[in-house]
């Protein structure tokens, strides 16, 4: 059961005190391997007969397209951008995440409010204002933070190239992308760690291999979904399958 509790106040539209699903949040900076791990977790949960919703930032029907359009112009001030993100977040919470929790699903959320708070804070938006703004957010059953340092993050980001926003180029006045990225990510990671402490994240060392990180994550998620009702007939896979084994058994039928 997910206990219906909020960081600040109960927003309009919520009557129940508990929901049968589970809300599991994966947080971490860009490039840390979040989306890969979320994809693996989803597959693993589905193999064990859990119904899974996966969602992430800027995927709302309401505000997703508007934010993408606005960011192309690089003209958004931080307050407007964050209210825009908050609209997107609320729309997904209300129309994707909560209905899934009501239906008894596992909602696997790739970045919740914390990425938004961390990014805004390093851009000079008041931390108190940001945390207050997201007072309407449902407190997750688990918030798992993929912890990394700049040194280990760099090779992963280099592979696919630096992104304008993820390098802080919109507000830092560094001479080059590399220095900007280094400085921005260092500040961002420090902010994440502060949030991790304040909000009791489960911190997972994300410096290791994909398989190693997955193993730790899987154990944490397993703890979170324990006791949920699943369709026993569909639960054909043993709980301790490794990623490789899961891949192999998957291959012929896929």
């Amino acid at each position, binding site marked *: 059961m997910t206990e219906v509790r909020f960081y*600040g*106040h109960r*927003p*309009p*539209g919520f009557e129940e005190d508990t929901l049968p699903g589970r809300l599991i949040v994966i947080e971490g900076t860009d490039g840390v391997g979040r989306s890969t791990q979320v994809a693996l977790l989803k597959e693993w949960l589905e193999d064990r007969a859990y119904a899974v919703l996966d969602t992430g930032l800027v995927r709302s*029907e*309401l*505000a997703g*397209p*508007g934010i993408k*359009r*606005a960011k192309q*112009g690089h*003209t*958004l*001030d931080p*307050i*407007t951008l964050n*209210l*825009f993100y*908050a*609209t997107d977040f*609320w*729309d997904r919470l*209300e*129309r994707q995440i909560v209905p899934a929790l009501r239906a008894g699903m596992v909602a696997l959320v790739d970045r919740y409010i914390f990425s938004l708070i961390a990014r805004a804070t390093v851009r*000079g938006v*008041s931390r108190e*204002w940001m945390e*207050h*703004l997201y*007072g*309407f957010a449902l407190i997750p059953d688990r918030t798992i933070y993929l912890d990394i340092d700049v040194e280990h993050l760099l090779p992963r980001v280099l592979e696919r190239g630096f992104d304008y926003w993820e390098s802080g180029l919109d507000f830092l006045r560094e001479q080059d992308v590399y220095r900007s990225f280094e400085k921005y990510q260092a500040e961002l990671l420090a902010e994440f760690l502060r949030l991790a402490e304040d909000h009791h994240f489960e911190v997972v060392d994300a410096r290791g291999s994909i398989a190693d990180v997955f193993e730790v994550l899987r154990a944490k998620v397993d703890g979170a979904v324990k006791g949920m009702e699943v369709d026993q007939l569909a639960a054909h896979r043993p709980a301790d399958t490794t990623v490789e084994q899961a891949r192999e058994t998957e291959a012929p039928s896929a």
Partner: protein
Amino acid sequence: MNPFERDDLPGRLFIVEGIDGSGKSTQLDLLHKWLVGEGYLVVFSEWNSSPIVKGTTKRGKKRKLLSPMSFSLIHAADFASRIHDRILPALQAGAIVLADRYVYTAFARDAVRGVDPNWLRRVYSFAPTPTISFYFDVPLDEAIRRIMEGRPSLKFYEAGLDMGLADDPEDSFRRYQGLIREEYDRLVGEFGLVRMDATENLIRQQQRMRQLVEPHLNGVMRIEGQSLSDALVKARLRGRYVSGRQDVTQVSGAGRLA
């Protein structure tokens, strides 16, 4: 500029509030023309008009995606964008800003939809405090009569149909506006809004507005020699090919009201 940590702004901010049909926009328009006629530089901004955000609001309304909270958040985003791009720079420069609806519209409308009042006040804490906030107080029946006169049909959110107060749009609109009016009544005391009798003669209302505004105009930014109408009179031209300056051309004569 960080809007949370600004010093005193040299500009002046006058805003109007009131339910639909209170006549607030008409009065602000008259004030605008008078100020321009007096040679002041005036920046105008109205609710729900940010070029960056309003497309999303429109999308939400059209597809009926907006719940009380997303309605509130998207309007806050629109407001923030206008504060940043238009209102704050003008106030920093020492100009006059006129706003048709301000934070009190959100406080009233969103509270009616069940949004937490404390949360709203802190979310909007980046908004500069107006020099004067005018609240146009009109009896509900009179407002409804004015609105229904020239309007074929009410829109979904405009009539408050999202709140499930009534099935009939007109009935819903009446109840919705009635609830908002009650909220405004509370806000007048909380924020010291200046209550205007919106049933009074238009000219008398405008005179009162100008009397209240005038003492605040010392040292405000002016634009000299930029009146197009003066230039046209002087040059004996009609300005056939001059476009995009409606504000200035309409001004001739409006300034004589008071």
